[in-house]
Structure formats: C-alpha cells, structure tokens
C-alpha cells in the first residue's frame, strides 16, 4: 500500500536533513570547527529514514556510528545531535559519548565502537519488552559488515528461540569498512543467515524510501504482534568514505557512477515532482529551509559551553553505588 503524500513528503524532508547535516559536518571538519570525524551515509538515506519510519517513540532503535540518518529518522533533534557530536556539556550524554550518542526520550540506547557488540543488547531489550509485556519493538540497524561479528549468530538464534520482538534491519551497502563485501562474504545476501533460524526475511531495493518503509512496517508489525523476529535487508551502496579522510582507493569509480544514477533523494524528489506533490520551486525552498535548520542547530550547539574537570568524574557510578 503506497504511502500518503504527507508521509512521503515527511520522509523526503528527513532525507534532506540527513544529507544537509552530513554535508555540513564535512564542511565543518575542513574548517576545523568540529573534532569528531565523519562517518557519512551518503547514498543510504532511504535506508535509514525508511527503516525508522514505522517506529513509534516507544520503540527502541540501536543505530550506528554512521548514525545521523537513523537518529534523525527516529526523531532526534539536529540540535541534540550537534551538541553531542561537539562534545558539549549540554549534550544528552554530557559530551562524553560524541559518536556514541544516546537519547533516552527517543529510546536510542547508544552506539558501540566495536561493531556488533550491541547485537545481543538488542535481543536483551526485546527480551525485557516481552517479559514486561510492553507494546514495544526493538529495531537493530546494522551493516552487512557487522553481521560477520561474533555475536550475530547467537543473537539471531536467541531472538528466534525466545520469539522476541526485534527487527534486524540490515543496511547492505556492499562495503565492510574499507573492504568490498565480496571479500567478506561467500554469498551476496545476509538474509540466508537469519533464515537458518526460521526468521522470516525480505530483501529490498534500499534506494527507494517507500519500498524500505513498507517492508520494515511489515517486519515491525510481525514483531509487534508477537510473531517474533524479522530481518529486512536493504540493498544500497555507500557513496561516502568509511570515515572522512580514509585512504580511499578501494571503490571502483564505475560502481560509484552506477549507484549515483539512483541517488535516493533524487528518486524521491522525482516521484514528488511527477505526482505534483511538490513543485520545483517548493522543492528548492524546502531544501534551503532544511539546510538553514541544520546550520542554525549547529550554531546554537557550537556556542554552548564545554564540560569541565568536575564533569570528568561524574556518572561513573550511580549515587547509591561504589566509589
């Protein structure tokens, strides 16, 4: 069932915000205004926004180091993203996480450094939801590279074994850090690995935000209704470097050219213009407004104070705990 015009426009605007935030981050790095290196998801915006689209506020999202996409999708504000990325005291994590940001109000528990260390955490939050009979799904957003990590299989096994409300949303962007997927996998797809546990799977075109949204909505409903885990695999390509300034030279320029022709934002824009949901003029205005919003959020965050030495020692233990 196709999305309403309003919904599609909302997703489009979110994809524009992701692209704006990351382009701005890249610019800020060059200007020396931010320390945190960029892990950009250029070209993957439809996956990030599409898989988070069906989630409600009470649902839990585990996102990644390349996370602006999914965090914007889950409802995190650009200002809070900048505050934490800049390491500011007013950040939700008091500047201590930066890359690993968490937002409890939006049910984003944080980001790990060692990829896949959170695979089993997602199974755990889902277990807790089931035990407490919560109306809540956990969505574990993960790259295909990370699906080779130690806990991928035990996590999928336990999710299926205990019939847990967890959706594994695999962003298959063909690149495992700086190595092509073909050098890490004997198969082109991740899904067969989940299928061996009896977990239903679907592989979709990750460049089309509507397709991603619909597939994930089906998966989330499956999990929500007590039928257990589901895996959605979105095929896309990472147009950006693994991290800004990485050595490069590991991607075939022809492959980049091929995928550039199916840029997810261009595809969505085309759809909106063709169905006259937007005019070219309105689109231009929207893009400008989004870029301005991203910039304004950064400026506000940038002028916010840094933490100090007292903050260094806070929150190691709870107040009741050890010293």
């Amino acid at each position, binding site marked *: 069932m196709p999305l309403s015009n309003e919904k599609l426009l909302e997703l489009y605007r979110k994809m524009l915000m992701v692209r704006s935030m990351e382009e701005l981050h890249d610019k800020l790095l060059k200007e020396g205004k931010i320390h945190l290196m960029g892990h950009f998801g250029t070209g993957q915006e439809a996956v990030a926004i599409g898989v988070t689209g069906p989630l409600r506020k009470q649902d839990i999202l585990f996102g990644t180091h390349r996370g602006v996409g999914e965090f914007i999708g889950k409802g995190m504000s650009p200002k809070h993203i900048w505050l934490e990325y800049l390491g500011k005291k007013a950040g939700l994590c008091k500047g201590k996480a930066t890359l690993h940001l968490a937002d409890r109000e939006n049910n984003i528990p944080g980001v790990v450094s060692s990829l896949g260390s959170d695979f089993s955490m997602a199974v755990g939050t889902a*277990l807790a939801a089931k035990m407490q009979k919560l109306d809540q799904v956990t969505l574990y957003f993960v790259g295909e590279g990370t699906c080779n990590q*130690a806990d991928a299989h*035990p996590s999928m096994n336990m999710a299926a074994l205990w019939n847990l409300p967890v959706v594994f949303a695999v962003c298959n962007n063909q690149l495992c850090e700086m190595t092509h997927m073909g050098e890490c996998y004997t198969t082109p797809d991740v899904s067969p690995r989940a299928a061996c546990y009896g977990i239903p799977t679907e592989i979709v075109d990750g460049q089309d935000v509507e397709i991603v949204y619909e597939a994930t909505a089906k998966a989330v409903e499956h999990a929500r209704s007590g039928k257990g885990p589901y895996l959605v695999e979105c095929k896309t390509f990472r147009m950006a470097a693994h991290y800004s300034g990485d050595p490069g030279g590991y991607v075939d320029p022809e492959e980049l050219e091929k995928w550039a022709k199916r840029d997810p934002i261009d595809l969505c824009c085309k759809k909106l213009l063709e169905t006259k949901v937007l005019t070219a003029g309105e689109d231009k205005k929207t893009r400008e407004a989004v870029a301005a919003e991203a910039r304004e959020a950064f400026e506000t965050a940038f002028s916010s104070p840094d933490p100090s030495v007292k903050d260094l020692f806070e929150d190691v233990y709870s107040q009741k705990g*050890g010293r």
Partner: protein
Amino acid sequence: MARKINFLQAINEAMAEEMRRDPKVFVMGEDVHVGVFGQTAGLVKEFGDERILNTPIAENAITGVAMGSAMNGMRPVLELMFLDFAMLAMDLICNQMAQWRYITGGQYPVPVTVRTALGGGIRMGYGHSQCLESQFVQTPGLILVEPSTPYDAKGLLKSAIRSDDPVVFFEHKKLIFGGIEGEVPDEEYTIPFGEAVVRKPGKDVTLVAFGFMVYEALTAARELAGQGIDVEVIDPRTIVPLDKDTIFESLEKTGRLVTVEEGRIRGGLGAEIAALACSEYFSLLKAPVQRVAAPMVPIPGSAVLEDLYLPNKDAIIRAVKRAM
C-alpha cells in the same frame, strides 16, 4: 534469631529473596535450571522457566542480552559458569556495561549482577580453575565482590542485585563445595560495598586476604600465634570499592603488610594494595610489602603441580616471616 546455612544456600537464598521482592529480577545463564554447582537449584520450580532462563552456550552474547534487558527495565542475575569462560564476555562486561552509564551521561544505568565461579584445587587445569579478578580491576564503573562467608555472600549478593551499577560477584568453588557454614539472621539484611571485616585482630602484621585465601590466612595466623607472631587478618569482601581505611588503619598499628590472593602475582590484587601502601602510606611501613599469590604459569592439571601452584598457609607463613 539466626540460623546456620552454607555458602551455596546463601547464594540461592539471596536470589530467591530478591526475586520474591522485585518482579524485575530474573536469573539467566547456562544450565541454570539444573545448576551446575547448585547455586540456582530449585529456583525454576518456584519462579518458572521464564524468570529462570536457560541460555545457549554463548558467553559474550548472553552477557549482551543481560545488558540489554537491564537497559530496558529488568534486573538480571547472569551466571557465567566459570570465571575462565567469562573471558569470552570481557567486551560486554568491561567495554560496554561497565562504561555505559558514563558514556550515556547517566541516561542508561546497567543494573546487571554477573555471578561467576572461580578458583582452583579441583584438578581441572588451566581453563576451569583461574582466579582472574584483577582482569576487571582496571575497568571503571564495575563493582567487584568476593565474599568468604555465607553471611557475606547473602548480604552482598542482595546488595548487588539492588545496586544500579554492574556488579561482578565472585564465588570460590572451594567455598561452594566445602560446605563452609555460617550464621545468617532471619531478618532481611544487606551489606554495603566497600566495608572490610577484621576476621582476626592482631598487632604484629596486617594480612589482607581475598576469598578462599581468608581461610588459609586464618590457618596461618593460628600457627604463627604458636610462634609468638600476632597477625591481623582483614577480609576486604569487596575488591572495588576497596576499604582502604580499614587496611591502612591496621597498617598504622602493625607497620607490616602482607597481601594474599589465589590469583597470579603480576598486576594482581596485592600489587594495587602494595602500590597504595608505597605511595600513600610509606611512612607507616617498617618492612617491604609482601605479596602471596600464584606464580606466572598456567594452572597445570596434575594434582602434584597444582598443589605447588596454589598459594597456601605455608606460603603465607613464609611471607609473614619475611615481613618481620
């Protein structure tokens, strides 16, 4: 009123009482229905197999499941059967759950209790017998508990389960198998972290011993008393936080310090105490600090070799005499 129970019963009772008290508490681990050493025996009958959750064999992953459940409202008691196997879970214990509260700016506390059995003398060799507490000491954010009596085991385990911080709770196998008995009150009680107990007062030497070594230290103390040396035996009960006040008040009295652990000597628990003594309490020392610990070798399977490896009362006596 009080009654006598053994170390195993103390652990079992603590878990049962906390589960009756708080529906968020549950137990998970490998073989917890049966209970390989018996700590969880009988619990599944009272609490059912959803609250006493048998897991597949996957130490790192089940630790992550415990962490995730704790981040989302539950209070898991995770059993990692042998401390040696907990090495598979070091990422989740030391990189992740210990540090998550801090990294998330306090948004996500992780109230997990990890219970694990340590210690040698059971002739099972290198991977079933180690004392590896010091591997966790360098990690900020963990509470490390090592009781030596049923009273302490029960009170500290209850505190661990109620704590909002991740706790690693070390259970020595000899205390589980040895039927060590002790009195526990009928009334509800917990023990705060960071409070040592003086097991035997003395004026000549301060002996700080951990876990099962408390008993070897007390045996050594009795023998030394016969030789006119009056040893004070301190049981820290928690490794982190460490009750420095009790230890160094004792040192002020005796001027001589001997540490005793079953773990290996390099960078061990005694090393930290010795460093504290040297850097913060140097003027109190009448002699160099002595450390009794296992040598830097893997634990051999041979009974003869294992007995040579393990610290015991004779090694403690020799160390005390070196300190005199």
